[in-house]
């Protein structure tokens, strides 16, 4: 095994171009587990810890450009207002020790269906910035990023540099099922974001299909129901039948398996419950801000 220690992003891209089989390591919270257990013996480890700009983020007009290695702890502490869904998801990642090392780049690189960041990224809307020495930068929409179980749209010579996440324009929520509040691989997880600007709702489901997925039929149904009922304007409570139909459609978007953490039918059920709850939470929050702004006017 060789340990490659690029001092800059350009050096990292050059190293990846020269050794496409090199395994990038940043926080190490996925890669080192595989090495410790002898599940993986990469020919090259590509250490990204010295590439400083991977640890930085920029808050722009529309999006936050989040460096691939920004630890979850930083996201929780600094980006709660801009990226509430991702901040909530970050808080459910393992333990403080792990959150101090791991970041969204690793979650995307590993592309496990159980990765905690995925539902939040899908719900908020995001693009993954990847780069290769040969072809430069490209932005991959998050909806096209996950291609299979632990597979993603990266080419062998590419590295993940950042993820551009849309800044929240409305309430967001994240919910995760597990046996404790810490150190839990999700049995299943659900992210929901209201986008009052476009009068749309986006979802993300984790650990209940071969890849993280959106519940598109549920989104379309809810978008139409909210529009028809004038909910965005009148700020009424969402009718139980609408919430139930939304929950059922979210359950239907799952394609889960039975495994040690839970059965397929439990996952389907739990995703429905989380969908209904997160819809209620976010909608109540939306109504609250509407009332507050009306009161001020």
């Amino acid at each position, binding site marked *: 095994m060789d340990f490659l220690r690029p001092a800059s992003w350009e050096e990292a891209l050059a190293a990846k171009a020269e050794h496409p089989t090199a395994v990038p390591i940043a926080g190490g*919270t996925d890669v080192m587990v595989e090495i410790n257990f002898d599940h993986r013996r990469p020919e090259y480890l590509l250490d990204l810890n010295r590439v400083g700009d991977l640890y930085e983020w920029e808050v722009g007009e529309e999006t936050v450009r989040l460096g691939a290695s920004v630890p979850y702890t930083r996201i929780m502490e600094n980006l709660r207002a801009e990226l509430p869904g991702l901040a909530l998801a970050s808080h459910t990642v393992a333990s403080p*020790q792990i959150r101090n090392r791991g970041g969204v780049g690793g979650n995307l690189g590993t592309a496990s269906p159980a990765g905690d960041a995925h539902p939040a990224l899908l719900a908020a809307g995001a693009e993954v910035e990847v780069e290769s020495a040969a072809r430069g930068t490209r932005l991959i929409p998050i909806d096209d990023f996950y291609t299979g179980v632990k597979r993603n749209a990266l080419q062998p010579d590419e590295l993940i540099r950042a993820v551009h996440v849309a800044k929240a324009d409305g309430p967001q929520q994240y919910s995760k099922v597990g046996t404790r509040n810490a150190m839990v691989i999700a049995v299943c997880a659900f992210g929901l974001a209201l986008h009052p600007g476009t009068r749309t709702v986006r979802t993300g489901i984790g650990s209940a299909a071969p890849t993280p997925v959106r519940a598109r039929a549920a989104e379309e149904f809810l978008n139409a129901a909210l529009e028809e009922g004038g909910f965005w304007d009148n700020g009424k409570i969402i009718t139980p039948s609408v919430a139930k139909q939304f929950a059922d459609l979210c359950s239907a978007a799952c394609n889960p398996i039975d495994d040690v953490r839970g059965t397929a039918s439990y996952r389907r059920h739990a995703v429905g419950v989380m969908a209904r709850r997160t819809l209620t939470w976010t909608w109540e929050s939306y109504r609250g801000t509407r009332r507050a702004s009306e009161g001020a006017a």
Partner: protein
Amino acid sequence: MRVNFTVNGRPQEADDVWEGESLLYVLRERLGLPGSKNACEQGECGSCTVRLDGVPVCSCLVAAGQAEGREVVTVEGLADFAKQRTCGDSCGTAGTSLDEARQWAAKGTDSQTGEGTELSPIQQAFIDAGAVQCGFCTPGLLVASDELLERNSNPSDADIREALSGNLCRCTGYEKIMDAVRLAAARQSEGV
């Protein structure tokens, strides 16, 4: 490969390090510092917790090469680390040498008075509260608790639970560990 880094305030060099080796392995097997414990090797148990540039991490998940040029504090250096934090450089020579660290023991076992001991306040609190049984999880819990009290001098129970949520104990249960952290926080705020 060779790894140069700072351990407990002193520069150290580890040779013949395998590229896939963890920081934990280097500390235990190459530098002879077995205080950080090796259990799950997957970041689940927290018994290998050390400070890496001040940040608590599972040393089993840090590749040795990633520690190059960085500062590590292990449980063996915790007493000195806490002392430096309290009194700055006026305490004399900073750091714990490898020899001292290897021979480190909780001497002067009068846990009531703490007389003659070289313990950090958090270590003393763990002894006084009976928060140590088999002791395997203790080093990780000490490093994590010490860091909590460094950034939050008056933690709520929820703060303590969260800060220690990545450290598993399988014998005392967590109540006495909670007691120990509360005790250390109270003593810290009284300036004892």
